[in-house]
């Protein structure tokens, strides 16, 4: 370690949706790396340790090194000429950058979609159809005495969720932490999260909807046949006991994960647990929150919602926003072969989308922004390497409970930020498309 050491207190980790803002970072400014991340979980430590300064060209066109200015020009030309351009990603960048992506989608009359469409998109549909009874994680910490996790494994995916927000943490009305709470876990198998649960319900795979529907019926006082155990794997007596606890708690929280949203039933699964929460509010205070994955995926939902009215899968072909998951979501526009150009920001769909979608992505001009070389930047016509948010750039991200949190920069990067690249593309696209001269915020 060199002598040029900087300590950053109360920095924010942007690895997962917990967005813990109590990091104490030790930064070696000579080596340009974070050597210690106090308070970080195992995932956060890896996040901070692995982000140094890579040795990639700032921009490439057709795989060859190019100036950022030329790459911006090429990207703007591609987007302005496209008839059905799509913008995708956005969950690992700042809200300030996301704003410009929405503006570009508006200018080029294209589609804009985020990684929400392949994780909690179904919850977004369910929020619109059913409604959301919500709370901040601060409220959960201070008030909740009944915590239920459904279709998620926070011990491995969000390691500090238990200790910082929901289970063992001590709050105003939960001074004894875990002792003041009943914790329930619903999953298809015993995961490393199971030991923390007072009650573990092992639901048969693909039967979450039936289980939630059965709980709704019991909450409403309807009779159920004992054969529910053959359907869901959970006995009627267990369900009745659970409903009794739910109705009699002081403040209940239902956290749900992708075990619900990405299994058969999708938005109806999310809708079922949201409706269950609504039903429980006849008896007590109950809220439901999705447990979000990427660091600023919640910010992407918020930015799209406040700018277009919809959280993901938005189309501007007609000059105004339209929302239709399945029609305007990225997997679908690619797999059907609809898109004729793509701007991918802070995401790597070429490594995790269905084969048909990846094949089409390889057949159209792609512009990619990422902090490292990925399969998507490798197939991109224009690729930018950008600075990492929360480490090399400041800005705003949203925690999974829709609370905005400000980032602190740890050390400078030679690479431009997503916001700078997107601002430049936006300016050039605006000139090419003849769009309205919207004043742009000055980028520092």
């Amino acid at each position, binding site marked *: 370690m060199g002598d040029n050491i900087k300590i950053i207190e109360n920095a924010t980790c942007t690895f997962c949706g917990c967005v813990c803002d109590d990091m104490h970072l030790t930064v070696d400014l000579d080596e340009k790396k974070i050597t210690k991340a106090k308070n970080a979980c195992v995932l956060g430590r890896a996040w901070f340790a692995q982000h140094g300064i890579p040795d990639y060209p700032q921009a490439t066109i057709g795989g060859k090194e190019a100036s950022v200015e030329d790459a911006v020009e090429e990207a703007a030309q591609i987007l302005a000429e496209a008839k059905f351009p799509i913008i995708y990603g956005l969950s690992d960048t700042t809200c300030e950058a996301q704003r410009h992506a929405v503006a570009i989608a508006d200018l080029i009359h294209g589609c804009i979609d985020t990684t929400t469409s392949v994780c909690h998109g179904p919850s977004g549909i369910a929020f*619109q*159809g059913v409604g959301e009874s919500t709370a901040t994680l601060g409220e959960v910490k201070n008030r909740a005495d009944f915590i239920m996790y459904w279709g998620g494994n926070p011990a491995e995916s969000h390691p500090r969720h238990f200790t910082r927000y929901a289970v063992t943490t001590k709050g105003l009305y939960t001074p004894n932490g875990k002792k003041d709470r009943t914790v329930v876990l619903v999953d298809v198998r015993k995961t490393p999260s199971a030991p923390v649960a007072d009650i573990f319900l092992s639901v048969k795979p693909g039967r979450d909807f039936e289980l939630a*529907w059965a709980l709704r019926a019991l909450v409403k006082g309807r009779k159920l046949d004992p054969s529910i155990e053959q359907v869901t794997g959970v006995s009627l007596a267990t369900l009745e006991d659970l409903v009794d606890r739910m109705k009699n708690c002081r403040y209940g929280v239902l956290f749900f994960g992708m075990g619900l949203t990405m299994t058969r039933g999708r938005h109806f699964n999310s809708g079922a647990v949201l409706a269950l929460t609504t039903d429980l509010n006849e008896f007590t205070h109950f809220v439901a929150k999705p447990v979000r994955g990427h660091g600023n995926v919640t910010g992407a939902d918020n930015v799209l919602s406040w700018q277009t009215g919809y959280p993901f899968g938005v189309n501007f072909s*007609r000059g105004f926003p339209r929302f239709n*998951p399945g029609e305007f979501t990225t997997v679908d526009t690619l797999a059907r072969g609809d898109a004729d150009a793509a701007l991918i920001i802070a995401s790597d769909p070429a490594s995790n989308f269905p084969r048909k979608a990846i094949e089409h992505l390889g057949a159209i001009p792609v512009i990619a922004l990422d902090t490292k070389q990925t399969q998507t930047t490798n197939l991109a016509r224009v690729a930018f390497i950008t600075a990492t948010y929360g480490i090399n750039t400041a800005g705003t991200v949203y925690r999974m409970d829709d609370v905005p949190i400000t980032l602190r920069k740890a050390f400078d990067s030679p690479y431009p930020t997503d916001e700078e690249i997107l601002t430049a593309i936006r300016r050039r696209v605006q000139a090419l498309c003849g769009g309205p001269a919207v004043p742009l915020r000055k980028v520092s």
Partner: protein
Amino acid sequence: MSVTLTLHTQPEVPLEAECLSPDRLATLDQAGIAALPVLHGNRNMTVGDFFSVDGGKDLTVRIIGDLGRVKHVATGMSGGHLIIDGNIGSHLGLGMSGGEITVTGHAGDWVGPEMGGGRIVVRGDAGHMVGSAYRGSKVGMRGGEIIVHGRIGNEAGNGMRRGMIAVAADSGDFTGVNMIAGSIFVLGRLGARSGAGMKRGTIVSLHDAEVLPTYSYAACYHPVFLRHYLLRLRQLGLPVEEAHLGGRYRRWSGDSVELNRGEILLFAG
């Protein structure tokens, strides 16, 4: 003189052509039809850029070609007869109130969303969301008939209030979800979780099916009204056999988490 449109240029990206509706074309001559606006991705184009037009000023319109990428055809249609000789893209007959659409091939998602009247006949398969409500809307199909001779996808009749959907083959999951009223006939097998959140209405299948735990078994009987419906479906060309007309059906009532006044009738022989 009837109107014939033949696709001469396949759209590169989705083409939105809500103007292709008989009641709209009936007042226009050949040149007028060719000049109607369509949206090719984000570009304003005309019907003539993609279709050759023959005839004009008639309520019978035939469109020939693979229109799998053409969306929003016959939006708000109020009368006339539209024949699509080939496949058709999504949002066919959006909010239509009258007239008849016949598709000889397959149809995409959202056939007859929020339609209020008229009839849509699809000779092939149809996609998801047949006769459904749009996202954020509580009420789907409000009247009319949708007849599909093949299979249909998920969420058929989502939020349906009135009217009839009849399918010769199988349906996808959540058939009749959140139904307010109306009738759905699936001559093949019902998908999982049919009738979830149903308030009133009738879902019929000519096969046994698993019903949600929030449905309760009522009786096994011969519903008199069903014979009339099934005879009508047979007239429309659906494969209804004699045994189905006079057979007995298991009646499940639900959904108990809602009004509990809906019914699922499953053929019992």
